[in-house]
């Protein structure tokens, strides 16, 4: 067991959950290797086309603004008409003095998805055009280090279920209409989902190595 550097990296992988050393094998595409001891996902085949991700990322950035700035839901109640955007929802809660809740909502539904898209966009652009520059390479490193955190805070899918649940909730005593924003938000979720499926952190790190 005296292998050095690169060869070792390619032949053995350590499980992050139980530290078991597992010898690496080539996988068919779409298959994930699980740790034989604790069943944590170890690695999968890099399925990560830079150009495909760039396209998805740009689409998501274009959808991001209408999704957050256009009204999501509209309520008609005894002649009163109100609508709300995602950001207004968070601000309304902060205005009532519940800033912990408001910031949590803002972070999970607006800030984190935005950071995620920006970060992935910059990573792709650096990999495509700026791999010579030392400064850009260190910034790529910094972005990749924070990738997991940003992904954890991104909760688009939960927010989507959130406005569906509130629509059903309120339809009990008023008329509820979905506005353009909810369509954009759903599309943003779908595009981001595909982007995250395409994205492979391990593969992105390999660009830093060489």
């Amino acid at each position, binding site marked *: *067991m005296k292998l050095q550097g690169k060869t*070792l*990296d390619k032949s*053995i*992988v*350590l499980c*992050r*959950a*139980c*530290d*078991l*050393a597992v010898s690496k094998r080539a996988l068919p595409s779409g298959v994930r290797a699980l740790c034989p*001891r*604790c*069943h*944590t996902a170890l690695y999968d085949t890099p399925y990560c086309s830079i150009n495909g991700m760039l396209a998805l990322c740009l689409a998501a950035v274009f959808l991001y603004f209408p999704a957050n700035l256009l009204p*999501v*839901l509209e*309520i008609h*109640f005894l002649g*009163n008409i*109100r*609508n*709300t955007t995602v950001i207004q*929802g*968070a*601000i*309304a*809660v902060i205005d*009532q003095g*519940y800033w*912990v*809740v*408001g910031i*949590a*909502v803002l972070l*999970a*539904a607006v800030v984190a998805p935005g950071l995620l898209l920006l970060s992935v966009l910059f990573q792709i652009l650096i990999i495509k055009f700026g791999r010579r520059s030392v400064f850009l390479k260190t910034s790529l*490193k910094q972005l*990749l*280090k924070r990738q997991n955190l940003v992904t*954890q805070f991104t*909760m688009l899918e*939960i*927010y989507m*279920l*959130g*406005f569906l*649940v*509130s629509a*059903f*909730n*309120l339809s*009990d*005593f*008023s008329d509820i209409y979905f506005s353009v924003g909810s369509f954009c938000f759903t599309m943003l979720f779908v595009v981001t989902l595909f982007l995250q499926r395409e994205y492979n*952190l391990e593969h992105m*790190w390999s660009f*830093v*190595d060489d």
Partner: protein
Amino acid sequence: MTKRNRNTGMTLGLCLCTRCRKMNSKSQSHCLRCDSPLHTRDDTSLQKSWALLITAAILLVPANIYPISMITNQGKVTYDTIFSGIAHLVHTDMIPIAIILFVASILVPVMKIVGLTIYLIAISFELPISKKYLMAGFHIIEWIGRWSMLDLFVISITVALVNMGQLLDVKPAPAATAFALVILLTQMAAHVLDTRLLWDRLEVKNDGN
């Protein structure tokens, strides 16, 4: 149970970077790739996790007994706790929505706290519980925990949408903050824990996978 294929990073003199998952030699103090500090095992993570978990468990009480929203309907003010809101949904025959909200705001936080407590007790007191089930439970907790945010999203949308003064008005109430903190703290407790500790400590006595 062959001992041959039970090599861990520890015995091979290797250490995985928890940040970028690169393998480093145990002699390194910082990861070669991302410069994060390396620890073969993070023993303090157990204490941190306990502290966060206990705080979350304490906060779960106000989150459930205090009202989470205040509804003014034609001058009449009613307060809803998490549970009474769900009970109200059951009465108005919206069972599917009631089930979704029940799972997201009551079942998941409680299961998460109970599950993590069992997990941490198993590490701290070396209980002979099947490690495989513990780990499966841990993965479920990690994945499903974030769905508790659903209730907060629903409140935020409803508060912004329903503001018609005395006619119809919804405002958040104190339990919302406690509930948000419960989610944050339990997620942190699961995130901070070094799960490799479980496999080390129980390895000696019980290898019952």
